């Protein structure tokens, strides 16, 4: 704990626990301002969803002249929405709903809305308020906590039936952003819909290394550096667009450090993630982004080159190898210097270079073979690893009503953190007082290994055995659990109808 405080730079300290969560439903939407949905001028309507006005070659970007600001605001407003969510939470073994407000931006004519994972990721109910103040239901299409992004979709039937109109915004290129360039944020700070604020890009490759960002335990921010801007944003702005003076979305406003230290997910990341979510989503299937993982914790080489006797600007230090990971299986060792991946030269001298390299690994085909060239002492060793699908520390969670219990899948990271023998079983995350699991004296963190002596390999196996064992009233179920790495037996008496 001590060291955490010490190593924290001033900046992340500001951030601690204050990313822009959706605000609680307390702020009433202010009285509508009639001008916001006044008939758009021909000029601005042409821009939304259409080709953007190009800056001249001499000007890399248009300035924030009052005329430009007004024009861009008018362009972007019809594509920005307020999102009211009832988010799923698991407390005391039962699924609960927590209400909140965030922002979003419509990205196509099918009514898909890009927002943050931390706004709509676990949403069970979503209502969207459009720029013209019409309120429409929306459904979750997919999400990705690693980039803190989610896609929801307007109920298009209702949109058609009620003849509601909306515009969509164009995703620009964030790689061309330069510090000092003017940008605007649009969203719903504290529930105040359609709020525009103006500022500048403060930095276009912000990393918080060695600190790691997370959303209620879900890792985030690994695969891209952040856009830092001084554009004022507040809780409720989350998921709203950061827009350049061409009216193109260059980022998704995600975190706020207070006053003037704010952070957005770059549009280049958003475009790719939105694409993958939309492609993988189906009628009964949430869209997602699958990534490859090797299980290596990397460290920038900065100042370590001489210690390892290696050329400057070459390789990345293997700081740690996860137990049970593809890298461990391939024989990668801590303090190896990874110099090439599939023949491609790797160079991570500075923390800012970590995210792009992790992105490159995540883009490798899942389950495919990859050649890792490492320097170990004086030797250069080629190793072949087989990538696995990236899994975070927190596994999938489900509630089992008649047991009064919620459980999660045991992931490799969780098993390692808890020093479990392996990944089998499911971990108890919540217990409802008065229900069979609580009565049987299960506690949070117990890993259920077997139901009636049949092994629980994972959540699917648990679900199957749960259904088998919970037939009718008065069933008794024998559980084998591991608590603090010790085995215990527990008996559930099922006394409620399912």
């Amino acid at each position, binding site marked *: 704990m001590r060291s955490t405080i*010490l190593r924290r730079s001033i900046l992340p300290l500001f951030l601690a626990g204050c990313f822009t969560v959706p605000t609680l439903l307390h702020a009433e939407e202010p009285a509508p301002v009639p001008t916001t949905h006044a008939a758009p001028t021909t000029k601005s309507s042409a821009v939304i969803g259409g080709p953007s006005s190009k800056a001249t070659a001499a000007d890399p970007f248009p300035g924030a002249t009052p005329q430009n600001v007004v024009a861009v605001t008018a362009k972007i407003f019809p594509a920005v929405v307020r999102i009211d969510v009832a988010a799923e939470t698991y407390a005391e073994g039962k699924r609960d709903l927590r209400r909140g407000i965030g922002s979003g931006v419509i990205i196509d004519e099918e009514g898909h809305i890009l927002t943050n994972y931390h706004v709509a990721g676990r949403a069970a109910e979503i209502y969207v308020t459009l720029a013209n103040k019409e309120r429409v239901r929306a459904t979750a299409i997919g999400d990705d906590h690693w980039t803190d992004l989610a896609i929801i979709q307007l109920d298009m039937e209702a949109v058609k039936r009620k003849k509601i109109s909306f515009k969509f915004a164009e995703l620009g290129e964030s790689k061309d952003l330069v510090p000092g360039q003017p940008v605007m944020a649009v969203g719903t700070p504290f529930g105040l819909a359609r709020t525009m604020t103006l500022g500048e890009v403060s930095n276009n490759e912000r990393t918080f290394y*060695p600190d790691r960002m997370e959303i209620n335990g879900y890792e985030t921010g690994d695969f891209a550096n952040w856009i830092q801007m001084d554009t004022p944003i507040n809780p409720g702005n989350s998921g709203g667009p950061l827009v350049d003076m061409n009216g193109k979305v260059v980022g998704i406003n995600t975190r706020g450090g207070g006053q003037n230290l704010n952070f957005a997910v770059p549009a280049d990341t958003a475009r790719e993630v939105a694409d993958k979510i939309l492609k993988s989503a189906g009628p009964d299937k949430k869209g997602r982004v699958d990534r490859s993982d090797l299980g290596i914790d990397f460290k920038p080489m900065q100042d370590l080159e001489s210690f390892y006797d290696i050329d400057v600007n070459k390789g990345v230090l293997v700081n740690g190898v996860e137990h049970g990971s593809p890298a461990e299986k391939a024989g990668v060792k801590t303090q190896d210097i990874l110099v090439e991946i599939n023949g491609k030269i790797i160079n991570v001298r500075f923390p800012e270079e970590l995210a792009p390299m992790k992105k490159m690994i995540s883009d490798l085909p899942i389950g495919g073979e990859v050649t890792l060239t490492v320097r170990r002492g004086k030797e250069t060793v080629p190793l072949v690893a087989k990538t696995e699908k990236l899994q975070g520390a927190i596994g999938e969670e489900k509630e089992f009503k008649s047991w009064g219990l919620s459980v999660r899948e045991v992931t490799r990271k969780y098993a390692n953190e808890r020093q479990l023998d392996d990944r089998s079983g499911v971990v108890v995350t919540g217990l409802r007082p008065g229900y069979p699991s609580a009565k*049987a004296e299960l506690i949070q963190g117990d890993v259920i290994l077997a139901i009636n002596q049949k092994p629980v390999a994972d959540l699917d196996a648990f679900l199957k055995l749960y259904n088998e064992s919970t037939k009718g009233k008065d069933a008794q179920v024998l559980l084998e659990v591991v608590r603090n790495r*010790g085995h215990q037996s527990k008996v559930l008496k099922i006394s409620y109808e399912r």
Partner: protein
Amino acid sequence: MLRSPLKTLCVLSLAVAGCRSGGSHTGPTTQPPLVQMPLMTSVSFVSPAVAQALYDRVKPSLVAVQYTFNGELGRSEIIGPGVVVGADGLVMLSMSIVPSQIPNGQMIDFKIIVPGDTETEIEATFEGRDERSNVAFVRTKEKQDWPAIEFIEAPQQIGEAVLSVGLLPKSAGYHPYITQSTVSANLRGPVPQTLVSADGLAMLGSPVFNAKGQAIGFVNELQDQAVVLNDPRSPLGAITNPPRLYVPSRDFLQSLQDPPKAGESMKLPWLGVSQISGVNKEVTDFLHLKNEPAVQVGAVIPGFAAEKAGLKAGDIIVKFNGETLERGDEPEEAALILLRKVRRLKVGSTVSFTLIKPNAVASPLTEVTMTLEERPMQANMATRFYAEDLGFTAREMVFEDRYDRRLKPEFKGVIIALVKPSSSAASGHLQTNDIVTQINRTPITDLAQFKKLYEEFRKSSQKEAVVLEILRGVNTQVIRIEPPQ
């Protein structure tokens, strides 16, 4: 539900219980004169005269034990109450005054302070802790002729009067004081405890007497109690919030008969199992155990007695040496009672367990027999090395360090016992419990070699960073400690 407050007390007691009384064999030179016998056999209140007589008699047997905790981050002086249990100068104290978290080598300069106007300080030696009953012993370097307190086993009935004589804190000149209370319950648990009502007892570490003036117990339960006599934050803690639980003599008489001796580590037996838990009623019913107490083996440690005897994780023990297990006030306590029983046996003794397997069909009873082995060395006995220049302490690994992470016995490294706040090691993100496996790319074999490599490197390359490979949890990492420039 009603029980839960008591349960908490019992769990606390487990952590700390331990008293010891002047063993009969240490032979107190002065046999305590019995206080005037009242007419009734059971006394619920003693008269001022009886109390005064007891106070006067016990007073010379109460001393303060002082030592210096000489840790890496500084020194502090600790003073706690002690009871003379051997006329030649043997003093018993609660183990909470010398907690096992403090490495033995860091407790120095033991002294016994004899209360009184002169507050005589007498040089003393730390004899050791006795984890069988959570007491510790200190002996004067020179032989004394002190009145010792002889503890006897004498169960108290509900409603009987008990008295306790203790010392007020240093700021009150270690003035002795007496309290009177009434026995209100005899609790069962890993450490038997007697609950008293009314005024409560004297400070933790004080002897408890019955109305006849016999020493029948020791206050050795933590319950948020003041532990030391020189705590500036709440000097009168024990007065305003007096203890209400004591441990009857039967729990610690063994320690008095066979106390630890300086320079000899106490050989405690163990089974080689971990995470033993009590089995709750739902499970005993399910297994048709008919309300018998049972305990479940959580894990069996490879290479030790239990494994060799064939014990398996998940096995349920229903009998120990052929007898039904002793019941506590809570199912969970049956496990702790059993462990404490085992701890009181000698290394090398043979024990047997009757087991069943936890499954729906009634499984046959099996019996396993094993010889108790000596418990492996604990962390507080391990050798340490304080790297003062960079601000961390490394110590040799003990069995538990390896077991916690499922490391093989042949795994080599040193473990970080302490990282000084704001030090170079802290800025390099070194953490307590990290296991160092390499220093500057050289694998570590033991603490002596680590110390040698470290010191040589620091001498030859003062401005260069020390690069350590460590194991944190189950994952390896590289730590780079920049020296102060």
